[in-house]
C-alpha cells in the first residue's frame, strides 16, 4: 500500500456511463461494492440491475501498472413489484450488494431491494460438450433410425460466458424498507436490517429468519427513532452494530439473548451546545456504519462529518473529520430541498489508514488518519484527463474567494456522490456520481 495520503497522486483511470447530462432514472447507481480480493466490482442501480466489473491488470510485474475494470456480467436482479395489500409499489432499486467470501470457482453475492434479498451465483463457463449421440449440434434430436454408431460427447473450449443465476430468494421477512445486509464472519449467516427490525438468516435457508432486534413501539405514534444501518463485526461472529436516526450506535452480542434489544454497548457523542440548531437531530442521523478491516474501530457518517470510534470507548469518537462544515449555515435550505436527508456512505482503505466519503458538486473527500491530512477531489470528465493527476478542490465558505476556489453558493446539490469504494488491497478507488462510475488510481502505486 502506498505511503501517506499526501504523497498520493490520483489519476482518472476510467469513467463509465453515459456522457449525457440527461440522466435516465433507471441508470442511477444505488450501490457499489468490491469483492474481498478487489478483483470484482459490483454496482447496483435504480432499475434493479447489477453490473459486475472485473479487474484486468496490465504489466503487473512493473512497478507502475495500470489496471482496468471491464464488464464481466450484467443481469437483472430485482423487478418492480406491487404490494396489493398496501396499494404501494415496491421499487426494484438495489439498496445493497454484499459479496460472500469465495469458496470455489463461482462467486456469490447477496443483493437486496426494499423487501427481498437474493443470493446470486456468478459462474464462468468456458467449455461445452460437443458431439452428442442423439442430438444435432443445434439441439434438434436426430431421427433414431439414422443413428448407427455410438459416440460420447467431448468437452471443447468455447468463448467465455459468465452466467448469473439466482440461487436463493429470502422474501417476506421485512415489513419496512431494508437498508442493510451484512454477511457474518462465520460465512453461514447474515443479517438484514430495515427501519425497525433486524433479522438473522442462514444462507441456505430461505423460509425462516430470526428476529434479533425490534425497536417498533407498541403504538406507532410514539415512534421517534429508526434503524439506519447495521453490520456484523469482521471477526467476532457474535457481534454486530446498528446505527439510528438519533446518532447512536448500539453494539449487540448475540450470545447474550435471542432478542438483542438490550445493547452491550452504546456509542453516542454528546451534542456540542454551541452547534445546537433546529436541525441537530436530523444532521446527527447516521447514514452509514463500517467496521475497520482490523475490527478495532468503526466509522460512522452523519450529514456533516465522519467519526471514527474505538470499540472500547463509548463516550465519544476518537477522531472526527468534517466533510463539508460550510453547509452548516445552509441547513434550512437543505432541509427545504430535502438534501439534508441524503444518505452518504463511507469506506476504509485496505490497511485502515485512510477513509473516504462523498459530498456535493461531485466532490469527494479523503482523510489520512495517521498524518492528519485531508483532500477534496472532484469526479468529473471535464476536469480530468485520463492518466493526469487530478487537482485538489477547495470550497470557499465565505469572504474573499481565491482563484480556483468554488463558493458554497455555486455548489450543485444535484451532483451528489453517495457511494464510494476503496480497493481492499490496491490504491484504486471507485466513486459513483449520479449515473457515472469513476475509477481513480494512485500514480505512485
Amino acid at each position, binding site marked *: 500500500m502506498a505511503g501517506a495520503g499526501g504523497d498520493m497522486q490520483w489519476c482518472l483511470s476510467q469513467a463509465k456511463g453515459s456522457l449525457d447530462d440527461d440522466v435516465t432514472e433507471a441508470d442511477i447507481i444505488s450501490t457499489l461494492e468490491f469483492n474481498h480480493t478487489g478483483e470484482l466490482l459490483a454496482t447496483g442501480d435504480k432499475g434493479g440491475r447489477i453490473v459486475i466489473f472485473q479487474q484486468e491488470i496490465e504489466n503487473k510485474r512493473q512497478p507502475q501498472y495500470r489496471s482496468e475494470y471491464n464488464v464481466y456480467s450484467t443481469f437483472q436482479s430485482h423487478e418492480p413489484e406491487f404490494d396489493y*395489500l*398496501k396499494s*404501494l*409499489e*415496491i*421499487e426494484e432499486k438495489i439498496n445493497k450488494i454484499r459479496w460472500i467470501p469465495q469458496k470455489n470457482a463461482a462467486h456469490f453475492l447477496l443483493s437486496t431491494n*426494499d423487501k427481498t434479498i437474493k443470493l446470486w451465483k456468478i459462474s464462468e463457463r468456458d467449455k461445452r460438450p460437443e458431439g452428442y449421440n442423439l442430438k444435432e449440434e443445434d439441439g434438434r434430436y436426430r431421427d433414431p433410425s439414422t443413428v448407427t454408431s455410438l459416440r460420447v460427447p467431448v468437452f471443447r473450449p468455447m468463448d467465455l460466458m459468465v452466467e448469473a443465476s439466482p440461487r436463493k430468494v429470502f422474501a417476506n421477512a421485512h*415489513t*419496512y*424498507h431494508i437498508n442493510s445486509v451484512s454477511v457474518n464472519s462465520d460465512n453461514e449467516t447474515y443479517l438484514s436490517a430495515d*427501519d*425497525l427490525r433486524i433479522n438473522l438468516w442462514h444462507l441456505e435457508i430461505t423460509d425462516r429468519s430470526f428476529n434479533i432486534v425490534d425497536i417498533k413501539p407498541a403504538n*406507532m*405514534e410514539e*415512534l*421517534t*427513532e*429508526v434503524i*439506519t444501518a447495521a453490520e456484523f463485526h469482521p471477526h467476532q461472529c457474535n457481534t454486530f452494530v446498528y446505527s439510528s*436516526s438519533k446518532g447512536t450506535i448500539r453494539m449487540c452480542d448475540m450470545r447474550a439473548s435471542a432478542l438483542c434489544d438490550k445493547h452491550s454497548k452504546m456509542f453516542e457523542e454528546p451534542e456540542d*451546545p454551541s452547534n*445546537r*440548531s*433546529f436541525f441537530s*437531530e*436530523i444532521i446527527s*442521523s447516521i447514514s452509514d456504519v463500517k467496521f475497520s478491516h482490523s475490527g478495532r474501530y468503526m466509522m460512522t457518517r452523519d450529514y456533516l462529518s465522519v467519526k471514527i470510534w474505538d470499540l472500547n470507548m463509548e463516550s465519544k469518537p476518537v477522531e472526527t473529520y468534517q466533510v463539508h462544515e460550510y453547509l452548516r*449555515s*445552509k441547513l*434550512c*435550505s437543505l*432541509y*427545504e430541498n*430535502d438534501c439534508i*436527508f441524503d444518505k452518504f456512505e463511507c469506506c476504509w482503505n485496505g490497511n485502515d489508514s485512510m477513509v473516504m466519503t462523498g459530498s456535493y458538486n461531485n466532490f469527494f473527500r479523503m482523510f489520512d488518519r495517521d498524518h492528519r491530512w485531508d483532500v477534496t477531489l472532484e469526479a468529473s470528465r471535464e476536469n480530468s484527463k485520463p492518466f493526469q493527476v487530478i487537482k485538489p478542490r477547495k470550497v470557499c465558505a465565505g469572504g474573499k474567494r481565491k482563484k480556483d476556489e468554488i463558493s458554497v453558493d455555486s455548489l450543485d446539490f444535484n451532483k451528489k456522490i453517495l457511494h464510494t469504494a476503496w480497493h481492499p488491497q490496491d490504491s484504486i478507488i471507485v466513486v459513483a456520481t449520479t449515473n457515472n462510475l469513476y475509477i481513480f488510481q494512485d500514480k505512485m502505486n
Partner: protein
Amino acid sequence: MFGKGAKRKLDEDEEGLEGKALASAVASVSYTLQRQTIFNISLMKLYSQRPLGEPSLERRVLINNMLRRIQDELKQEGSLRPLLLPPSPPPDDPMDEGFREAPPSFGVLSATAAGVLLAESRCAEVRPMDALPALPPGVLVDITSSPSSPPSSSSPSGFLSDLALDDVLFADIDTSMYDFDPCTTAGAVGALPPVVTADDLLKSLASPYSGPAPQVSANQPFKIDLTELDHIMEVLVGS
C-alpha cells in the same frame, strides 16, 4: 431546548439598555420566524401528496420529531392555544404497521393561516394553556361536541382578538381547507398577508403560498389587525 435569544421583557429598565434590548429583540424575532418557517416547511413535507412508492419512514420520523419539538417549545412558552386539528393522514397500512404522523396536538388550519396565527408577539402576555379545552390528537373537533365553551378572553394586547377568533375556530369547518396542496391553498388565501421572513436564509426559501414577502422591521411586533383577521375568518368558513 434550542439556543435562542433572550426574551424581551416589557418591564425591563430601558434606560441605557435600549440598544441591547433591540439586539435581543432582533434575535428573538429572527428565531421565532425561523422556527415558524421550519414548522411550515415540515408540515408541507409531511402532508404533500406522495407518489406511488412508499415514502421513507426515517424521513417522516425526523420531520415529525421536528414538528413535535417546535410544538413542545411553543407550548412551554404558553403563547399557543389549541386550534382545530387537521384530519389524520390516510392510514398507509390497514394492518396498522404504518407510521401515521401524530398530528400536532395543536392544530393548524392552513399553512399560511398558521403562519399568521402562530407568529407570536413578544409583547403578548402568556395565556394559560389549561384554560382551554384539551383536544385529543388526530380528531377533528366538532363544536357541537366540544365540552367547554371557548374561554372568555382576557385578550393579550396587540395580538389576535380572541373572542372573534374563538368563535370561528370552534365552528364547524369544511375539511377541504385542510388540503395542504400549495396550489389550492395559494388560491384560497391569496388575499392573506404573506408570511414574513426575516434573515437571509429564510429569504432564500420560496414560500409556496405567497408572493414576495415584505421585510419585517426588526422592532415591529407582530400585529394582526382586524381587517386581516376578517380575511382569515372568511377563508376559514369557506365563504
